[in-house]
């Protein structure tokens, strides 16, 4: 199946010469862009900017706020829980992000050919994406119970020593929570990669086979370079989803036991709504934003520079 990518209808080229014609925008286009932008500005951007303002205050939600300048940020550096949450978030980014990218690509490669029944497998892998993360978490909580599915299976196959209280053991809590998040994310990344893979011209593979390239060489020399634009999308999605991972962690462990599975997002939530320190929580939110923005920006800048080269 050849990909049919249609470039958007280009605007008529401006007439040659020194006369500069102003590029105009049709009102329909304006409406389609402005209305969501307005909604986003009011409900997302403005509160986000207010969050930056709040990060310079100390506020409990009831009394008037007091300005503390960079006091919240200074406190972040000496806060051991912040350090733990930061490391956990990096671990989450690497494990959750890395495994979902690799797993998603592997699944996409596996389910690329339109064989009989492949649609069923694709749908099965994608279905967890559709479930609410809280519902997913509740099911996995039952699975991870001391006498739940995981421990029962381990006992049945004779691995009694591997049984743990998965969600309340400090050593296993974080990794136990990554599994349901990964279970969901792989399906999502798989769909992104499927779309990208389908866009690769199959004549490239035919040419490579003629030249005698192995499957692995085809993968590294054709597939991966062709997927570079999809990779930038996947990376952004992974980073944003990793840093936003809150529902599944909160529903399963609330960041516990004693901060063992604390992520920056859960720490921000508990600081804001349990400890009622909204200024400090806003500082955490700013840190999360800078982290996400910084990583994505570095990658995009490098990707565009490579593309131009």
């Amino acid at each position, binding site marked *: 199946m050849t990909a049919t990518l249609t470039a958007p209808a280009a605007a008529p080229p401006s007439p040659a010469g020194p006369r500069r014609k102003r590029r105009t925008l049709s009102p329909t286009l304006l409406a389609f862009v402005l209305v969501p932008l307005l909604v986003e500005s009011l409900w997302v*951007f403005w509160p986000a*900017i207010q969050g930056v303002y709040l990060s310079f205050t100390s506020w409990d939600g009831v009394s008037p706020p007091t300005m503390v300048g960079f006091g919240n940020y200074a406190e972040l550096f000496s806060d051991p829980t912040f350090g733990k949450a930061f490391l956990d978030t990096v671990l989450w980014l690497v494990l959750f992000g890395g495994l979902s990218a690799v797993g998603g690509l592997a699944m996409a490669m596996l389910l690329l050919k339109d064989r009989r029944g492949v649609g069923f497998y694709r749908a099965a892998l994608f279905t967890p994406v559709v479930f609410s993360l809280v519902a997913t978490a509740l099911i996995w909580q039952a699975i991870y119970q001391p006498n739940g599915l995981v421990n029962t299976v381990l006992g049945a196959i004779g691995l009694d020593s591997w049984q743990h*209280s998965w969600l309340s053991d400090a050593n296993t809590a974080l990794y136990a929570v990554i599994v349901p998040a990964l279970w969901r994310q792989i399906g999502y990344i798989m769909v992104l990669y499927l779309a990208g893979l389908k866009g690769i011209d199959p004549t490239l593979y035919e040419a490579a086979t003629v030249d005698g390239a192995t499957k692995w060489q085809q993968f590294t020399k054709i597939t991966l370079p062709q997927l570079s634009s999809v990779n930038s999308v996947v990376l952004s999605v992974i980073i944003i989803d990793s840093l936003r991972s809150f529902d599944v962690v909160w529903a*399963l462990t609330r960041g516990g036991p004693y901060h063992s599975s604390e992520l920056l997002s859960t720490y921000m939530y508990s600081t804001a709504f*349990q400890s009622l320190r909204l200024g400090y929580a806003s500082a955490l939110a700013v840190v999360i934003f800078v982290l996400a923005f910084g990583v994505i920006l570095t990658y995009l800048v490098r990707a565009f520079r490579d593309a131009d080269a």
Partner: protein
Amino acid sequence: MTTTGLSRRSFLAGLGAVGAATALGGCVTSTGSQATAGGSATGPVTLQSNLSAPSAKAAMQALVDSFNKKGATQASLNTVASETFRTQLPTYLTSANPPDVLTWYAGSVARSYADKNLLLDVSEVWTGLSGYSDALKQLSTDSGKQIFIPASYYFWGMFYRKSNFAKWGVTAPTTWAEFLQVCETIKGKGVTPIGLGADNSTPWVASGWFDYLNIRVNGANYHRELLAGKHSFADPQVHKVFDQWKTALPYFDPKGTALSFQDATTNLLQGRTGMMLIGTFLLDTTPKEDVDDIDFFRFPIVDPTMPLVEEAPTDGFYASAHTQRKPHTLEFLKYLTTAEAQEAYLKSSAGSSLPANSTAKDAGTPLITKGKEMLTKAADLTQFFNRDSSDALQPTADAALIKFIQHPEQIDSILTDWQSAAKKVWTS
């Protein structure tokens, strides 16, 4: 494509203007026009309730219905999920059109809002009120005026199944030494002596142990002062509490921190554990045929010279200071103090709590009567950890106590960490 005269440059300029306007960050913390109480607004008295459990919600509705039948003043109930209620409570109280009456708990959690002048002075409801003990009035007072109307309270104790105790040949202990002896006997029968349900969703159950051990070892005054920030968690007195706890730790359920208290209750009822320190709310989920088999004993006495103090968390109502319907609100609150109202509520609920008005009839079961007697004879009554301190301090306790239960050998570092976390809560 027709030209509309709108160039990209002016479009971007407009966008920039919108962006600049959004930089008005200061608006986020303004709490709206503060209307003073007394303005007469029409409409029913609004009761905002966080009792979202089905039986409690039905009981609240029965209470409101019985008030509405009495006269012209009407009340309406609005139930909100308890976690949402807790996080939204500051917003409710500071809004310009707040709910008139709200359910909440007594203790410093109410006083902290009263100190910010967010609660209505209901002293006139308390004048001439009979049937309420001085302890309850003291609990509802902040800076000389009453701000809280108690409705019900319940108690904590070591709950067990009478039939199981008889089967194992043990009787309810009174002192700590007897308690450890009972644990040893039960352990010998192959049953986990002490159950616990303090997993990630209900870690506050462990605070019951801390509270009781603290009031048994150090007394109620030290306990309240500690929770108010007047003592350090790294003090030797607090260490003594944990040393005492360590002697009972070997008898705890090793999976206690992986189960919610509902699952732990099931374990208790099915005889997999011997006893559990929990509140009477466990009766809410106990099957009817097992309720009569449940009994409790008072938390064991550690120091016989210490006066006997018990935990009796009190639930009730308070009114917003900015209410627009002050006379009707006070009328509704007056009704809530009557025995009739409290009986109407208790009748529809599971009957595991005691009415605050001593003339009102409670469930009357031997268990409830025994608990009531224990509380009446107590030298002093504390609330619960988060009610005596604040919701903000509870997570620090959860982290410290769960870590202690799993790693008791790290007690010193646990206590220093707890103190630094608590300090941040008190100084913020």
